[in-house]
């Protein structure tokens, strides 16, 4: 048996047709000045107008049937998302809802929730934020203290605090991991549940946190006696830990785990067209080989997910390797650009490389740190 499961996938002409369509559209939008390319666009670059356009094209909500979904394959969604990353398009508003919470609602939502929320997500009009980390619970996620207390009438009373919730200031909903009953002795994984929170509910307050570059995309969210309806519980009461870990495994292998900095490389290649010296060429050759390999691994997992297989270790591995590569790409682009005098670089290039550098620290933190990923891989190797 092979140590890991990474199938090699042949290019599919039907997917390439979709790619051309998406590419043509994004190119036209960019040339019309409707967006500026940015690295890490899926996290920090939000534009509700652009999200609605993506929704109209049928490029959000591709993976579910009915409720506004387009019933297309996970591979088709992969092609669309990797193209938006290449172009550094402002997809941050809808990214999390489309990737994470829509599939969660499809699986665990009530009929009413599905009918109400899913079509709006697919239209690019309804956005979500993630409520996992807390001031006292980062990598040690099971230490969350936010509490949902069941009221006699079946509703829930929510109290606590979430942190680093990206996009919470624009989000219509948030899904949070909360404690619904005490831990069983030393087993803290029991008694955790996931709840759906309407951000307009009374008692929810959002306070932006400014990042080191001066942007405020992540937030501190406080719940002060927030009353949630009975159906706010997503999935099983007490089954939150299992739900969260399987959800994380699904989202760790996507193209945004190795292409966050690709927009920087794209601009550099345009900028250096016909001017690349031997140092730049050697570096480009190396990161090109790395990118091609990571894409093979990530797309191989997308194929497994399409078949209903969710390989946790392989996903962790792609995330760890891919996040390191994102930073390696940025560092190599710096070196490539050093062949040109500063005054020959366009303002666009200078802006993008600066954003790329400033937005690099979270690559290896969000969605589980590199250290957590390495722990998962080590367990698979039989070392833990």
């Amino acid at each position, binding site marked *: 048996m092979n*140590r890991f499961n990474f199938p090699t996938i042949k290019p599919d002409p039907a997917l390439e047709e979709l790619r051309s369509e998406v590419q043509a559209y994004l190119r036209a939008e960019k040339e019309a000045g409707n967006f500026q390319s940015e690295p890490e666009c899926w996290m920090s670059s939000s534009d509700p107008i652009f999200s609605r356009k993506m929704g109209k094209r049928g490029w959000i909500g591709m993976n579910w049937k009915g409720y506004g979904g387009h019933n297309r394959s996970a591979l088709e969604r992969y092609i669309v998302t990797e193209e938006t990353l290449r172009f550094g398009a402002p997809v941050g508003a809808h990214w999390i809802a489309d990737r994470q919470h829509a599939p969660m609602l499809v699986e665990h939502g009530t009929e009413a929730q599905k009918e109400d929320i899913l079509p709006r997500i697919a239209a690019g009009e309804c956005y979500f934020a993630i409520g996992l980390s807390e001031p006292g619970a980062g990598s040690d996620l099971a230490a969350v203290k936010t509490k949902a207390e069941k009221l006699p009438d079946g509703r829930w009373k929510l109290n606590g605090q979430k942190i680093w919730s990206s996009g919470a200031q624009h989000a219509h909903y948030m899904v949070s991991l909360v404690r619904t009953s005490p831990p069983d002795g030393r087993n803290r994984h029991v008694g955790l549940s996931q709840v759906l929170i309407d951000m307009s509910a009374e008692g929810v307050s959002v306070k932006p946190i400014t990042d080191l570059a001066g942007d405020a995309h992540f937030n501190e969210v406080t719940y002060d006696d927030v009353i949630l309806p009975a159906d706010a519980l997503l999935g099983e009461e007490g089954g939150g830990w299992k739900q969260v870990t399987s959800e994380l495994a699904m989202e760790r292998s996507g193209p945004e785990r190795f292409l966050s900095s690709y927009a920087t490389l794209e601009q550099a*290649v345009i900028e250096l067209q016909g001017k690349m010296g031997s140092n730049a060429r050697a570096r480009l*050759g190396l990161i090109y080989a790395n990118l091609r390999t990571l894409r093979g*691994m990530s797309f191989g997992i997308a194929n497994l997910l399409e078949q209903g297989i969710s390989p946790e270790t392989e996903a962790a591995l792609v995330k760890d390797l891919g996040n390191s590569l994102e930073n390696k790409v940025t560092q190599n682009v710096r070196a490539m650009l050093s062949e040109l005098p500063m005054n020959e670089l366009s303002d666009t290039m200078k802006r993008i490389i600066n954003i790329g550098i400033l937005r690099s620290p979270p690559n290896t933190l969000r969605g589980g740190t590199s250290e957590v990923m390495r722990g998962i891989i080590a367990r698979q190797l039989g070392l833990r």
Partner: protein
Amino acid sequence: MIDIESLIAQSAAKIHERNGGRALLHGEIAPNSYWDAIIENGLHLAWASEESGGFGADLSEVAGAIWNMTPAPLPFVETLIANKLLELGGLELAEGRASFAIGAADGTHIIPFAQQVDDVVLFSEGQIAHYKSSDLSGTALDSLSPDTDGVADFSKTNPINSAQTNISRPMIEAIILTLRSVQMAAALDGALSLSIDHVSAREQFGRPLSKFQAIQHQLAVAASQVAAANMAASQACAALSNNIESAWHEAVIAKVQISDSIEGATAAFQQVHGAIGYTMEYDLHLHTRRLWAWREALGNEHIWAQKLGDDLAQKDSDNLWRGVTTGAW
């Protein structure tokens, strides 16, 4: 696209185990019985087409056989490549241990595993020629690996058979780099297994090394590189299997990626083994020394990254992206 459970791969695994498995690898030359079993099972002819006298097996199955025999000290990969070259030249296949050389401008050519082979197939622009080793005068090259390469001057010797060919140098490079990439991925995987075994057995400070997070993380990172190497080799095999004329690009990518992976991974494997990994007695060097040698063979990753970059620099950003996403060039 490396099928280690194919019939051919299983038969390779059996031959490997019967002839000593891990233990035999310490010899500089594999026992004759190992090679005899390869011949008996026709594995040396597995990849050559049926029309040329081979068995026409798919590369994914052949790659599985290479994987399962790595790092045995015998010229199995070299023989597969030599016979593929003979097939492409429309020449009769070699019956025994064979190797290959690819023409250099000065007339002297490097022959991998030169000491152990009876036949050498030389590719030079426009020609494929079959030589007997005994007719060639050459010298052994200083090597990182126990499998000694040689260098010979072919200009004063007549081949026993030759043919004009329109096969291009990049096609030959694609073949060599792809099969080597499978070997390198396999040796990385083997070294990872040794490392896991070692850190699980070795105790310090009253517990196995595997229980230290510093060790776990080093091997986790190395394992990611092993997986990347496997993917790069698989993509190269898929491309070569699909069409030899367009396989060069993925083969070079595999060469660059895997060589890049070797750097960090072998450092971690040596480190977690401690001093025992630095000895001739212990198995690790059988993998790591060959990895360092194969990384250099036909030029190292810096040379090939430069060639890839030269190609990329001629094209635009659309081309780069198409390469990343589809492998097409």
